[in-house]
């Protein structure tokens, strides 16, 4: 089925633009979130948006129209999650948003108890998770967010790679009842892909012994560039929890042994255990690429951080080629 990522048509994946208008050029996932959530506030009176100052200015117009359903609790992140849980208990569908550090890490016990233990649903929408804002430093980075959520039960985790994917995944998440985490990024692929079914999307099929590379969300473009000309099977994931074990096994196919490469935009190795579970019947090796645990303690640009983490195309290519080469020795 080879479909080069760079030429996949955005039209196949695009959710209907809000209000029928085309997205403004250069619109970020976070901008799109504001438009989609504002539209949902207008069209579904079960929707409530809960904020802790971050992005509140962009919701001012929606708040004027729906003062009871757009709530900025101030810089109070324990209350942010607790109030979201209370809204859900009262029959609302809360959409809860701030930076990932303050949405997942700071009020983690509230995620565990106020949402999971109460057995209520919510849609958490984060921004600036990994190194979207390098000049902000480590206080404003949360590369461990998905790994933390992995200690909890029953969360859907979505890592869109394009604003159109973000819109689709947001709308689906809000329409449901469950606990969903939508991880928005300032980093985006050139084109949106059809990610509605939550499955691994095969983009390129390599030879019978080729490594299976899984690129997550905004890591797709650098990964596709990195593996150009290499014999690999390339899969794309915008929903990582639940992890599509069936899709991974299908990509591995009849291989007696498998080599798997994970390229994740958050903490390296976050999905290694999921790969191991999916391939428990197949001897396999895994190369897990992502953001390292060690603090970089540098500011600068996203490009500089990607390079420092080995997550730019050149860094990825070197490590994936070495892994693939070792597989043949």
């Amino acid at each position, binding site marked *: 089925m080879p479909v080069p990522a760079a030429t996949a048509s955005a039209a196949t994946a695009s959710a209907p633009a809000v209000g029928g208008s085309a997205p403004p050029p250069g619109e970020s996932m976070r901008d799109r979130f504001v438009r989609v959530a504002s539209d949902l506030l207008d069209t579904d009176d079960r929707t409530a948006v809960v904020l802790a100052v971050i992005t509140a200015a962009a919701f001012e117009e929606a708040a004027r129209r729906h003062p009871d359903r757009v709530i900025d609790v101030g810089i109070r992140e*324990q209350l942010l999650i*607790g109030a979201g849980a*209370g*809204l859900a208990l*009262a*029959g609302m569908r809360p959409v809860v948003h701030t930076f990932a550090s303050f949405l997942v890490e700071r009020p983690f016990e509230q995620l565990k108890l106020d949402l999971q233990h*109460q*057995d209520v649903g919510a849609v958490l929408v984060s921004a600036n998770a990994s190194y979207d804002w390098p000049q902000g430093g480590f206080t404003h980075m949360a590369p461990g967010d998905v790994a933390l959520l992995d200690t909890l039960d029953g969360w859907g985790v979505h890592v869109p790679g394009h604003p159109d994917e973000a819109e689709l995944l947001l709308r689906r998440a809000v329409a449901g009842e469950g606990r969903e985490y939508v991880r928005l990024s300032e980093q985006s692929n050139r084109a949106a892909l059809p990610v509605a079914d939550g499955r691994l999307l095969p983009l390129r099929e390599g030879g019978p012994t080729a490594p299976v590379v899984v690129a997550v969300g905004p890591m797709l473009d650098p990964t596709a560039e990195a593996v150009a000309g290499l014999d690999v099977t390339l899969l794309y994931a915008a929903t990582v929890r639940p992890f599509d074990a069936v899709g991974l096994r299908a990509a591995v196919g009849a291989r007696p042994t498998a080599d798997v490469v994970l390229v994740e935009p958050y903490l390296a190795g976050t999905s290694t255990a999921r790969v191991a579970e999916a391939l428990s019947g197949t001897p396999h090796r895994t190369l897990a690429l992502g953001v390292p645990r060690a603090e970089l303690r540098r500011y600068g640009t996203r490009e500089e951080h990607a390079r420092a983490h080995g997550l730019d195309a050149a860094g990825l290519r070197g490590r994936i080629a070495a892994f693939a080469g070792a597989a043949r020795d």
Partner: protein
Amino acid sequence: MTATAHDTAPTAPPGAADPPFGYDDLPALMARMTGADKHAPAADSLTDALWVLHQDVLRLDPARPDAEDRDRFLLSRGHGPMSYYAVLAARGFLDPAVLDGFGTFDSPLGHHPDRTLVPGVEISSGSLGHGLPIGVGTALGLRARGLAEQRVWVMVGDAELDEGSNHEALEFAGAYGLDSLHLVVVDNSSATWGDSRSRAERITAAGWSLAEADGRDHADLRRAYTLPHPGRPHAVLARVEPKHAR
């Protein structure tokens, strides 16, 4: 923020028409959980505050524990829930026979309550400082859904108020004028720093209406619970005997 729905006492008789047990049955009901011969009310600081709230204030129907138009009672201080379970049994939410298995593998009744296991329990609690923020959201949600007559009551212990999450909720609810929200602080002087006066001052400074009451005097509790508080959330500081002799 102004609203008038919550500034007076309820007019309809609350609770079930004919609850199976009365206040005097609580010691025997509690004893079914602990194996003790009987319990004096002082065995639990919450007993009287809970009883008066259930009997005279909360509009609940044990036949319809999930009715949309019910008031919400959130026990935030979830540890030592024997008197809570006893009150739920007395008011008809629980079969008293269930009390005998308290804390056992097959029982729905643990040492911290689980809302998914016990009818009438609105939140699963145990870790301190979660009830009031959840109560804020519940009050906001009921308001957004147009359920303007429904009130939210949260009960905490005085030591529990040390958790900073409460202060996020207190400040917000006071400034927002969330007048469907009510807080009962059962004060048995168990907090490690600060005192009853500092707690009361923080609550009023956050813009709440505050009434103090003798936490063992049913008429006084009833008075404090039903004071009008137009446009402001309402707190009741219910004092009981100190947990530790001073």
